[in-house]
């Protein structure tokens, strides 16, 4: 089994490399088509065209695109993604300091999502053709119609402002020192044994995770419900019933595992949704993650930073897809090679 996991995972990762190259090229080219002049922000107001030309040459913007890409690629392979125009710091460092926050947020959002959507999906399935179908169905569609950034605002309005129970800015309260171990606060505070700060970090995570989770859970609920309905008509379910297996056992032990497979695929496909939602949610909650960084980069027309972050997002997506594919192979015996 372990060998299988390693094989599938490595195969997916290896085939992801050309994709990554193509994507970086696409982003690179797209960003060079920009109408606004990125240099305008870096120059003092009384700069002459000659000064601009010097700066342009310094940054290498006057070379042909392919050369620029080649240089960028070479540097990227060495871990150097350039210097951010807006922050005047290395892009790699900027991303490195903000990525753990985003990952922590997304993972906890995923966890909350699953906690909501597995029972939710089973409920939505169980009420089909019953009295509860309309209210449950409407609730799910309603949830689905609210994008995560609006959830964020609503949650702040209700649980942050109207009933000030939870914090809605940043990762930690004011004046709390940041441990710089892994970057994952939930782990770092635990390692340092600082329970109060740990709890504080958790409290700061609640609203942003909920916002992301509420945006993502309805999708999972819907696909779970529909694949459970698919399973309901399968022969093995009827045969199990004829063997006297109880309804609840059929649902939880037989159908759910089979229904999980299409749900897993969908989670992989829609994970981009979650990552994308993180951008705005971080911005609204002043959460110091990569998404927030991206928004600032976009506002500043900071091409170098945008390029770097975009590539990091692509890497994340490809990684997630590889993991989902591997999980799928583990769960579905039909995909394994016959022994």
């Amino acid at each position, binding site marked *: 089994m372990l060998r299988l996991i390693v094989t599938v995972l490595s195969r997916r990762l290896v085939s992801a490399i050309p994709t990554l190259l193509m994507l970086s090229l696409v982003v690179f080219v797209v960003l060079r088509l920009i109408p606004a002049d990125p240099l305008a922000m870096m120059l003092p107001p009384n700069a002459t065209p000659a000064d601009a030309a010097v700066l342009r040459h310094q940054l290498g913007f006057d070379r042909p695109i392919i050369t620029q890409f080649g240089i960028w690629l070479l540097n990227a392979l060495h871990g150097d993604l350039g210097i951010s125009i807006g922050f005047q710091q290395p892009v790699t460092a900027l991303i490195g300091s903000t990525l753990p926050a985003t990952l922590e947020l997304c993972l906890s959002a995923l966890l909350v999502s699953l906690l909501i959507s597995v029972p939710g999906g089973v409920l939505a399935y169980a009420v089909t053709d019953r009295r509860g179908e309309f209210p449950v169905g409407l609730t799910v569609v309603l949830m689905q119609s609210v994008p995560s950034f609006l959830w964020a605002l609503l949650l702040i309005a209700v649980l942050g402002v109207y009933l000030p129970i939870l914090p809605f800015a940043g990762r930690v309260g004011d004046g709390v020192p940041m441990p710089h171990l892994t970057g994952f606060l939930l782990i770092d505070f635990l390692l340092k044994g600082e329970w109060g700060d740990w709890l504080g970090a958790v409290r700061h995570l609640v609203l942003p995770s909920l916002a992301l989770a509420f945006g993502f859970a309805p999708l999972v609920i819907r696909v779970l419900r529909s694949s459970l309905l698919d399973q309901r008509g399968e022969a*093995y379910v009827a*045969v199990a019933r*004829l*063997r006297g297996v109880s309804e609840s056992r059929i649902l939880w032990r037989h159908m759910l*595992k089979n229904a999980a497979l299409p749900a897993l695929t969908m989670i992989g496909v829609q994970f981009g949704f979650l990552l994308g939602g993180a951008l705005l949610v971080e911005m609204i909650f002043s959460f110091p993650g990569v998404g927030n960084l991206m928004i600032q980069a976009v506002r500043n027309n900071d091409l170098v930073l945008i390029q770097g972050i975009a590539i990091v997002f692509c890497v994340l997506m490809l990684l997630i897809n590889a993991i989902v594919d591997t999980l799928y192979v583990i769960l579905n015996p039909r995909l394994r090679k016959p022994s």
Partner: protein
Amino acid sequence: MMRTEFQSNTLQPTEPQSIGVRPMIDSESVLSLQGVTLTATLGAQPVSALRDLNFSLGRARVLGVVGESGAGKSMLARLISGLLPPGFDVTSGTMRFVGRDLLAMPTRQRRELLGRQIAFIPQEPLTALNPLWTIADTFNEHLTRLGVPASQRFDTALHLLESVQLATPAQMLRRYPHQLSGGQCQRVLIAMAFASEPALLIADEPTTALDVVTQTRVMRMLAEQQRQHATAVVLITHDLRLAAHVCDDVAVMYAGDMVEYGPARDVLDRPRHPYTRALKYATPDLTGPRRRLPVLKQQMPGLSALADLPGCRFAPRCPSADAACGHALQHRAAPNGHRVSCSAACEHGADTAELQAALAPPTPVDDARPVAELREASLTYYTRSGLFGQHKTGFDAVKPFSLKVYPGEFVGIVGESGSGKTSVARLLMGIEQPTEGRVLIAGADVTHGTAKQVRRAREQVQIIFQDPQSALNPRRSVERLLTQALEAAGLPAVDAAERRRRALALQSDVGLPADCVTRFPTQLSGGQKQRVNIGRALCAAPALIVADEIVSGLDVSVQAQILNLLLELGREHQIALLLISHDLSVVRYLCSRVLVMRRGEVVEQGPTEEVFSNPQHPYTRTLIEAVPSDDAGIPWPPVAAGEARAA
């Protein structure tokens, strides 16, 4: 209660077990129904989906329930299991299982019986097991329910698998269902069914989805298990002959009524109800004189139509119906416990003399030039494997062989699934290109031909597909479907009036009712859809029609209509037909020449009568023996000496 009864038994199938603590008197029946009526309240009016059922099944007896689809035989199984669909209720009668009233029993208690005292074997074995569980997992669940202690479960499972003659049972337990063949899956399901020594077993078409050779093996094994465990069996099937050979008693169902009931051999040898008779004679014989298949007009009424049939539901189709039949259902008794629901029954006993000789299968009109030819054509499918696709493995779908089809003759290709017979059809149609060899249509070589050549060739050869559902675009009217060939490129445009005329002509050619042209495929029955298929193929006036398993999805009585239609068309239009089928009796009825294929090669060929009456190749002999014969005296399944264990 039942649980204690079970736990007192140990699973040692070598000795016959007694069922339960309460001693069973032989005359006490395992399952008895009296006056049971199942009413469906789906539309405005309630209809009786099952009407006034009466029978009694004794211990270790086998009852065959025979009927076409829609007859209610599966509904009977659902009735016994207590898993009725919404809207169906039992409105009268009693049903007893070993003396206990099933209908009065609370649901919970009734469910307790399932899998223990009442077992089921489903129709499609490959999908009947959870695809994500190993066989061991499924056994584990079942044996846990039966109360087998954890330490003994593995050994019990092994033992059960051995008893159904599965080789390497330990390996089998570790496998997933998709790694097993249909026959192996069915054996596993049979093993699980008999694990609890059930008093009653319901087998719903257990071998229909299996190929013919596996069918005989599985039926034989099922009969053995039944004898060993002394289980009463209700065998549901659409095959009257199979039931007559394997069962003690047979009940024939039609539209929810039990129209005939009696000892199996009696019902087969001397069918008394006109429907049973039609059912018996609607399947062509494999041996003996070729007699014309009697045609029953229309088809079995569906649920919604039953409200208008208060009396005998077969009356609208019955050749000997009178005015009284439509009002009330009459019952008569014959010797040997043979019952029939028909007034005219006793007068028409055995009347084979009435049946006429059939039209002879068409023979070649012109011996000189074949309309289609394969010269040493072969077809190999390649798959790539390995990390970079460097390993190429070939699968020989068709090994090199030659075939000539002459104008006007009907040729048949028989074989089981995987024999390559469909690939031969695809080669002739140009859907696949031969790996080696040549394909000639009307004398012109079209192997790897130009588009123009291919187009011209396709005008000569038309195909009728197996699945009429998939073959007709549901958004086109019948008229447009029938005359679809007229829209082809390169033909002069046809105006609407001409098109309608052609459509009507084709419609009457294939025997469709007059108003069909304006309907859509979803409004037609399976038989009617197949006729539209045939009509569409005829529209192009081809020289050869390739028919790929065109009757295998149809009910027997509808099948008879299509077969007779094909014979008439062959005679009128002198079209050649290449019939591909797994059903030998159909091929015998239609074709003058036959080829027997196995695993991509032709093992035997020749004139149909010769090949079937005097088969030379052992495989042909196996195929022929696997068909239950008309004569209830010849045993079926055939006794096989030293049969190898199913690996």
